[in-house]
């Protein structure tokens, strides 16, 4: 049996010592998990090593840790894989998750961060009026859609890796916002508007997400928290919620900017995001950007002429027509790949396609069997 080297971040709060690294060697099959490796260390060598774990099968969410710097479940990360992706020559580096205080060794304080944020979004169904005698009758697709966020096992991997939370600890964060979408996307909930207003108005809410995709890659269950946050933004917009954080205005200004110019005209975007150059909110924001703007002007990066005229706009009347046509649709299309899956198309997978088709897991079914087709989401 191969031998693996585990390098584990230790912290024993009662020792009075700072965190340190400790290495252990274990003999196990390569397809056994990092958790099994750690449990073997605990069983045979060192019973003081702390890690939360229970199901061993990636359903209880206990064993979130960082392996080789990336948040993962220890139970579904193979030793072989971890050793093969080691930054330290085959040594598997295991640390506690980030963005949360460490309690002991690989155990972090989920309560102080993760659960507090979950409770922040009123995480329970709030239906309106009396329930029906039997079940609520709701579309099949809506239940599949919210089951994506229901699949969250609260392991904290996304919280661990959230880059917004790293600079703004008050950010509600990916797990809690995915939980919020679980209700906003649920037709049985009666508080969609209130929920959306709440997470849009909070300066650390949906518009505080920096769109870095870390949570999507971190999630072991395919919840794609960032995609749920984007759905919340879309829903907030379609409910006409104007947040104080310029989030919605920025979005609107962006679309308008492209409609006007075809290409982005940055000089207009900034003031428009604050409500227009003459908006009272715009002035202080623009003033605070002044040092950057003056420098840019001085270095010739931005010329006053370009800033005013945007020389590229002339080709784009076609684009304008197109944008107006799609924007005026009552129910723009929304394709949810979690519901529809991918078509299977052997020929196309042979395309190189920037490898998007070929490298994707082949989770596609015959085109004709894709029953539900594109999703339509009503916009109010």
């Amino acid at each position: 049996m191969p031998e693996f080297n585990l390098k584990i971040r230790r912290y024993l709060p009662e020792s009075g010592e700072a965190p340190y690294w400790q290495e252990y060697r274990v003999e196990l099959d390569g397809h056994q998990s990092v958790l099994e490796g750690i449990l073997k260390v605990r069983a045979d060598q060192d019973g003081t090593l702390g890690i939360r774990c229970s199901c061993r099968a990636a359903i209880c969410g206990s064993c979130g840790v960082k392996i080789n710097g990336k948040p993962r479940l220890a139970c579904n990360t193979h030793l072989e894989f971890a050793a093969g992706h080691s930054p330290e020559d085959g040594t598997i580096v295991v640390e506690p998750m980030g963005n949360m205080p460490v309690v002991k060794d690989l155990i972090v304080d989920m309560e102080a961060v993760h659960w507090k944020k979950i409770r922040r979004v009123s995480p329970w169904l709030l239906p309106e009026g009396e329930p029906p005698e039997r079940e609520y009758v709701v579309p099949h697709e809506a239940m599949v859609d919210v089951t994506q966020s229901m699949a969250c096992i609260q392991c904290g991997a996304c919280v661990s890796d959230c880059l917004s939370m790293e600079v703004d600890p008050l950010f509600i964060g990916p797990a809690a916002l995915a939980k919020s979408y679980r209700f906003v996307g649920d037709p049985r909930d009666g508080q969609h508007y209130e929920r959306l207003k709440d997470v849009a108005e909070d300066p650390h809410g949906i518009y505080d997400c920096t769109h870095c995709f870390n949570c999507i890659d971190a999630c072991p269950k395919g919840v794609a928290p960032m995609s749920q946050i984007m759905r919340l933004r879309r829903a907030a917009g379609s409910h006409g919620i104007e947040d104080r954080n310029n989030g919605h205005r920025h979005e609107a200004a962006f679309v308008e900017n492209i409609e006007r110019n075809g290409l982005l005209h940055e000089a207009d975007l900034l003031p428009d995001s604050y409500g227009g150059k003459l908006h009272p909110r715009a002035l202080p924001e623009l003033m605070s950007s002044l040092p950057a703007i003056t420098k840019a002007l001085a270095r010739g990066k931005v010329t006053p002429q370009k800033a005013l005229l945007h020389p590229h706009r002339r080709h784009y009347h076609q684009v304008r027509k197109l944008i107006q046509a799609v924007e005026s649709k009552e129910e723009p299309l929304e394709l949810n790949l979690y519901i529809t899956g991918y078509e299977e198309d052997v020929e196309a997978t042979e395309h190189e396609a920037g490898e998007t088709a070929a490298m994707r897991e082949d989770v596609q079914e015959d085109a004709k069997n894709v029953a539900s087709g594109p999703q339509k989401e009503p916009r109010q």
Partner: protein
Amino acid sequence: MPSHDVLIIGAGLAGQRAALAAAEAGATVAIVSKVHPVRSHSNAAAGGINAALNPEDTWESHAFDTVKGSDYLADQDAIEIMCRAAPDEIIQLEHLGVTFHRDETGHLGTRAFGGASQARTYYVADITGQALLHVLYEQLLKYHEQIDRYEEWFVTSLLQDDAGECTGAMARDVRDGAIEAFRAKAVIQASGGAGQAYKPTTNALICTGDGIAQAYRIGAPVMDMEMVQYHPTTLVENGFLITEGARGEGAQLFNSGGERFMERYAPNKLELASRDVVSRAEQTEINEGRGLDNGGLALDITLVPRKRILEALREIVNIGRDFAGVDITKDPISIRPGQHYIMGGIRTDNLGRTPVAGLYAAGECACVSVHGGNRLGANSLLDTLIFGRRAGEDAATRASGLPMPDGNLNSRITDEQAWIDSIISRDGNGRRVAQLKEELGEAMNQYCAVFRDADGLDACLQTIRRLQEQAESVGIDDSGTVFNQDVLGVIELGYMLDCAEAMVVSGVKRTESRGAHFRTDHPERNDDEWLKHINVTRTEDGTPEISYSPVTITRWQPEERKY
């Protein structure tokens, strides 16, 4: 010192459901769990929950299937209660937010499950237990003013007053090692099963029979403990569960010769016969040399349309990929029978009351008995909810008529602390906890498994007795207070050994074959002698004592069982 009307130990489905019911009935509630509630093993119940909710279905049909599944050992009055209450419970959970699968008309949809004469299993993809557990936890958060949560508190023993009534529990705060006495007018044990006494098992590492042993140690009888379910489809590699939902959706079993062998064992229900029947068929195939080279059999899920797999069996796509390296949409996966569930547990009546006044039990740690000799798939979630609720309601009723138990518990706290300190300061006997646990698990899986006989069970019992002795002096490494998982491991080992002992002594006694208990030396069912429950009670000197109680039969007389 925390004092509550109702103290609930364990925060899986049974415990959380009990907490909500007790709070709704006006009681003050504490729920204590050694792990965070959403880590509970109810998560693992993938396939669904049974209820005769369709207009063309009847509770009688559900009840009969359950009686037959139990091999007539279950109590029919309890089954009747469960099956009658099931439809309302599903609707109530749906109203609380469970994202149950909908059919194309937007109504609740079902899937087929083993041992059932109708498709009556309601589900959320293959994460039904997880969905239920998380939705109930949402409700605990919602009702935080009525329900105090003690997350990551490990119960070390139950409290009893001079009259023998249960008045609370002692627990250690896992985060800082502090011992606390919890007073209560009623205590509900809802701490789950004991699968970790086996190796391998589908059960989580936390399933160490804590509540069963704690109740047993204060004199509560445990019942039907010989009835241990082996699930037909667990991964050959490591014993992880592949949901029965896979067969419900159309997956089939094949032996090394490519034969669909269930045709020989259960010509009508085939792969969807009850679990004991399918597991026995598999073990026979393996024992008679028709297994695969890796010791298993082939489960072919590729027969299920791919789109359906990806929507309804997402989780086992992951399990196949992560834990067996198999893409189940393309290739068969190797499975074998593996320990999954214990039908037995703390004996209760239909309100969850144990013979010890003030002590209730619900869920896998309890034995009402609705599962008898073999539990049907998708009846365990139902059991937790129905009897969790009933226990919660009755505990609240009991509490409303009682004063808070008094008496000074400081010396009790000191004693408990001293006991734990003594474990920490042991020199040890040269063996490690993990070694003892492994030896236990292997012995149980060898002798107290799908097929059993007197010699094997005797050998197993001797092993258990020796391990019990060694466990008394086994040493540990960790002397800290913060998350000292080492010391908790010693206490858990003691719990598992108690449970294993009860399973084996009951198994020795039952000299017939019924449900999951198949004695190769007594291969026939014997209703004349054994249509009765075996109870095990702990005597003063710690040895188990056997007694019997009748099976309640209401309308379904025992008959031959065929699938």
